């Protein structure tokens, strides 16, 4: 019963979306923004949001009750799963995650319809119509090609999915976090299309769009940070970013959203950068769809290739072609009719923001080209893979100037700034940069150019991030400024972590027998014993180690080499030891064969000492926290403004009487 209810709610929501598109576009065309049809649009969006919410709730209930007559549940769940994984099983698969996508999207549409009153009504109608149009594609995708509520002809005796690899709290929440980011960008996209259709690219439009961009950006930041840490500890390769297509697919929307976030702020504050903001709004959503497409279609070979289906890939490609192609055509037709907006000097806050927007876009282009390049060559019959030797230096060409400008930018005034006013902070930051360079070069040799530049600029950015607080009354500062300070500081911190990891990491690859001691950086690691251990569907060799930092107390470490047998698969469970100044990372490999002279068996050990590597993820969290502060600040300001407006209106009424 529950499955039929969920499916019915979904169909109904799809029908309402069609109606919403029809009513919105018809009343826009007829120029009757206050007609009866137009009055339908907002309620339709709200009810649609409620219906999808009910539908998703129905799916959750099915998973919690482990209703094995439903195909999706039988394929992905098991009655013996812990409760939290039953719940996460609902979105840990293609169909469920698409339903989550549609639910969040329709819910957001409902919220806009309920609360957004600043924009002119025609723009709102166009925005909601565009949202319904985007939604319809995903409804069609769900209902025709990936119905989550499909019943089995006869109930399965027991569920299939008790894959312990996927029972990881990180994996349960990593994909939906990224999804929330992607969906938030779809709202920004609808706003951009609505504004283009009605030629209302105004500061009000920017203010309406900003919270959605900000929200999406926060989720993307958290998603990428968590994903990076997951790859770091789970894959056992000691790296934290592999420029894998799937990682790039999440990085590209983030880059576009970061650019959009800043350009929206310029539009809101200064009424400049109108077409550029629209373009970025379209680009950001394009990147999320391109990312989803690349991951789901399996067109690029990747370590994440677990959700691959060419048929679904072609469906997403068609949606992509319709939405993005349509929006870009609209953009090309309308861009000429949108006035450019306010002018500004090169040395001004706008100038700095524009510069960094261009840099971000350039980095985005570099990542996109690097990700798609194997496809291009494969079309010509050559298989290649593009890796860090391309991405790191080529990206840095644009990232380093961007960091320099980012340090100075927030200190500049809008419109025009004289160089004299910023001479002192520029001097201070220059000194900091040179000092860090000198210290690092003097204390250690043989550091690459990139990590060196990264360290110097990372420290400067972190120092510079607090400079905007100078001479301001801290208690009266808007929350959004605090948000900016934190986020910029997070960038500096993360850059320091990345540079430190690549500059100072010490790696040892040795064959050791029980009792041997290996030195790695400041650590002495003793291999005590190697013992077999067994889990539910794996056996493992566990290396018991004792690690001492600078002759301190020994700390136990136990990395494992696991062998699963259905299907046969080897994984490494790395052991991590975290100190304030870095992490010790230990992996145990196979037994070393072929030396008959050895009296005792020897084992491959991989040990890394990674100074300050944790700063990468602390930085990521700071960035997200900054975003959250800014979002709360913006929403609070908006609520206060609402309340004030209402009071004024009430007073007017009283006086009028």
């Amino acid at each position, binding site marked *: 019963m529950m499955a039929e209810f969920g499916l019915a709610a979904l169909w109904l929501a799809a029908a309402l979306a069609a109606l919403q598109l029809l009513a919105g576009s018809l009343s826009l065309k007829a120029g009757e923004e206050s007609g009866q049809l137009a009055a339908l649009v907002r309620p339709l969006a709200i009810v649609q949001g409620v219906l999808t919410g009910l539908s998703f709730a129905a799916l959750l209930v099915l998973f919690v009750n482990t209703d094995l007559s439903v195909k999706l549940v039988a394929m992905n769940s098991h009655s013996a799963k812990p409760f939290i994984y039953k719940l996460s099983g609902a979105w840990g698969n293609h169909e469920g995650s698409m339903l989550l996508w549609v639910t969040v999207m329709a819910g957001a549409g409902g919220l806009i319809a309920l609360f957004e009153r600043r924009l002119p009504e025609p723009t709102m109608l166009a925005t909601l119509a565009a949202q319904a149009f985007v939604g319809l594609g995903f409804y069609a995708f769900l209902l025709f090609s990936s119905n989550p509520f499909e019943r089995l002809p006869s109930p399965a005796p027991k569920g299939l999915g008790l894959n312990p690899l996927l029972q990881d709290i990180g994996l349960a929440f990593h994909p939906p976090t990224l999804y929330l980011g992607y969906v938030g960008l779809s709202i920004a996209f609808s706003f951009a299309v609505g504004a283009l259709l009605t030629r209302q690219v105004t500061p009000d439009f920017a203010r309406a769009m900003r919270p959605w961009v900000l929200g999406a950006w926060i989720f993307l930041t958290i998603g990428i940070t968590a994903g990076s840490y997951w790859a770091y500890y789970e894959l056992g390769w000691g790296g934290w970013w592999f420029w894998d297509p799937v990682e790039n697919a999440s990085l590209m929307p983030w880059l576009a959203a970061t650019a959009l976030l800043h350009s929206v702020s310029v539009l809101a504050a200064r009424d400049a950068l109108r077409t550029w903001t629209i*373009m970025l709004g*379209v*680009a950001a959503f*394009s990147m999320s769809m*391109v990312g989803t*497409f690349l991951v789901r*279609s399996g*067109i690029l*070979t990747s370590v994440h290739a677990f959700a691959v289906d*060419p048929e679904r*890939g*072609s469906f997403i*490609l068609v949606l*992509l*072609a319709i939405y*993005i*192609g349509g929006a*870009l*055509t609209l*953009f*090309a037709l309308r*861009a*000429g009719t949108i006035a450019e907006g306010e002018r500004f000097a090169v040395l001004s806050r706008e100038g700095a923001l524009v510069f960094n927007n261009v840099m971000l876009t350039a980095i985005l282009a570099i990542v996109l080209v690097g990700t*798609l390049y194997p*496809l*291009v060559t*494969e*079309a010509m019959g050559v298989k290649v893979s593009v890796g860090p030797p391309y991405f790191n230096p080529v990206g840095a060409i644009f990232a380093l100037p961007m960091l320099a400008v980012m340090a100075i930018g927030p200190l500049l005034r809008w419109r025009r700034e004289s160089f004299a006013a910023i001479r002192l902070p520029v001097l201070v930051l220059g000194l900091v940069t040179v000092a860090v360079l000198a210290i690092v070069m003097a204390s250690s040799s043989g550091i690459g150019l990139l990590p060196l530049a990264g360290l110097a600029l990372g420290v400067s950015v972190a120092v510079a991030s607090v400079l905007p607080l100078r001479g301001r009354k801290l208690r009266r500062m808007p929350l959004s400024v605090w948000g900016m300070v934190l986020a910029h500081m997070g960038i500096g911190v993360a850059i320091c972590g990345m540079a430190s990891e690549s500059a100072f990491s010490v790696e040892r690859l040795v064959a050791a027998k029980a009792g041997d001691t290996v030195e790695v950086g400041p650590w002495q690691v003793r291999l005590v014993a190697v013992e077999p251990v067994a889990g539910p569907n794996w056996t493992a060799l566990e290396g018991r180690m004792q690690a001492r930092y600078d002759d301190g107390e020994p700390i136990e470490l136990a990395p494992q080499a696991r062998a699963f*047998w259905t*299907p*046969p698969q080897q994984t490494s469970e790395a052991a991590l030891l975290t100190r304030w100044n870095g992490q010790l990372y230990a992996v145990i490999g196979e037994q070393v064969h072929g030396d008959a002279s050895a009296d005792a068996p020897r084992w491959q050990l991989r040990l890394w000492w990674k100074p300050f590597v944790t700063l990468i993820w602390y930085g990521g969290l700071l960035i997200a926290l900054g975003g959250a502060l800014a979002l709360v600040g913006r929403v609070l300001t908006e609520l206060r403004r609402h309340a004030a407006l209402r009071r004024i209106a009430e007073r007017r009424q009283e006086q009028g009487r």
Partner: protein
Amino acid sequence: MTRVKWTVWLPLAVFAGFVALVALQLFRPAGREVESAMIGKPVPAFTLPPASADRPGLSPADLRDGKPKLLNVWASWCIPCAAEAPQLAALQRQGADIVSVAVRDTPDDVARFLARYGNPYSRIGADDLSQVQLGIGSSGVPETFVIDGQGIIRYQHIGDIREPDVAMLLGKLREAAR
């Protein structure tokens, strides 16, 4: 003004290029199988005890007798292995010498499987720890290798042998004999 008009179409052009590229890749007939890293290399060193009572075990020396062979990696618990049994029988009837490795199996299960689906093998080695399976570059069952008379791997077939593959494998065997 004309320059502005030209540039606003640029994003659309780039996007169209992207869609064309991926559409081409998506609908192209699949030619994405991975070339085995083991092709051209000798079979690794191993000695396997027999997995069934009436067939000997397997060691690399058995593969260096000058006659090309098929080496079939299988298991009694593997359903596709049962599905390819008729094709293996056909290969044997047409003169192929098939040796095999049974992965993670018990003598009883092997005997039951062979009684039910027939025994096309001249030798069956028991690989109880998947050592040979992993060493020879096979990651799943069933897989079939063409080994030439000197014990060099010439071809790797991943997955079950379907009817059209029979003629193809016979061809590979003839190639390896040359």
